[in-house]
């Protein structure tokens, strides 16, 4: 399913982009739908898309050596995920599974990187937003770690 710039304007992650930049993102994006318990990607998968959750709820976690899945957090509507698809070695650090039926915007990561290289302003905005996502994930992980250490 195609994505339009108007679709992107409704999502917090795409605040501050110009209309032209939103058209650029829309042109390399599509909407994908998933059923309950669908795996979007596994930990250590090679990633080719980054995602923004449009509808539904997703669980993010890591797997242990015995294949036991540990749930680390919930991805909420409007959140960006699968950032590893933009950075070498493009390998996911976690798995993502649907908790409810979900609809996501899937953005071609290779083409996104090409646009980042081409347009400095677009690149800075996108990298700032990705950095913010990773920073929050790191802060949440520290919080979880401190919780465990003080048990």
């Amino acid at each position: 399913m195609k994505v339009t710039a108007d679709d992107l304007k409704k999502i917090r992650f795409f605040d501050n982009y110009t209309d032209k930049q939103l058209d650029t993102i829309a042109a390399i994006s599509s909407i994908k739908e998933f059923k309950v318990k669908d795996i979007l990607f596994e930990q250590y998968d090679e990633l080719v898309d980054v995602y923004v959750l449009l509808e539904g709820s997703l669980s993010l976690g890591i797997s242990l050596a015995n294949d036991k899945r540990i749930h680390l957090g919930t991805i909420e509507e409007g959140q960006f995920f699968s950032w590893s698809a933009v950075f070498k070695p493009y390998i996911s650090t976690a798995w993502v599974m649907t908790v409810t039926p979900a609809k996501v915007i899937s953005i071609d990561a290779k083409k996104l990187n090409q646009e980042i290289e081409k347009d400095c302003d677009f690149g800075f905005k996108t990298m700032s937003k990705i950095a913010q996502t990773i920073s929050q994930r790191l802060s949440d992980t520290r919080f979880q770690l401190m919780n465990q250490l003080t048990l």
Partner: protein
Amino acid sequence: MKSKNIYKPIKAKLTEVIDESPPIKTFVLIPEEEFAFKTGQFIELSVDGIGEAPFTPSSSPHVTDKLEVTVMKTGYVTEIMHKLNPGVFMGIRGPYGRGYPVETFFGKEVLILGGGCGLAPIRSLLYALEHIKDHLEKVILCYGSKTPTDCVYKPLFNRLNNTDKFEAYRTVDKPDEEWSESVGVVTSLLNKIKVNIANSVAVVCGPPIMMKFGTIRLLEMGYKEDLIYLSMEKNMSCGLGKCGHCMMGEYFVCKDGPVFTYNELKNTPDIWK
């Protein structure tokens, strides 16, 4: 004229004990005389011959003939309290300290971050905010606990989500098979809420680590330091600023708090310990 003895507790009959989670119980008390408090203020609750401990009531400040106190089993006195049955008398003295300045919340959105047993003072605040909801824009509660079993006041969340102007969200660190709400630390809930930060105040109450990370996230979101209210319930003993047990920097938590703005405390060493 005889002045009131500020150290003398008033008698209160324990009428009900509610199990909230394995280490947490709520005690319903009927004081022998009217007992008024401001939300966020604390009391000293005592067991005859055993001792007393400070708690912030979890009931509505608009109810003066009944008091609810939520107690987590953490030490000698609280362990004895957990063994009490309805019918016995306990002692209450107070209220002490500075509560939430709810009258300054008029016309604003109120974002509340709570963790673990920190929901006890928050429940009292929620009752107070429900009382003035016509003067508020919105109230959002984000609450985190370790597991679904540790989540206290379970019926509260449904009720709030069915109350005009109120939204309540829960998350747990470790879900079980039946858990269908969010997973993760309480700050992750801030990704799902919509709040007008320019017209909003924030309240944080919970374990020190949660308060630290919660406050940092609120500051990152753009909350002003003097509009973040922290409930610093630690080490209170006499309740009157005499014993010095609760001293934190230049403040006595029991007398100057327990509710402070982050702006008041930001230069105080070790506020999150």
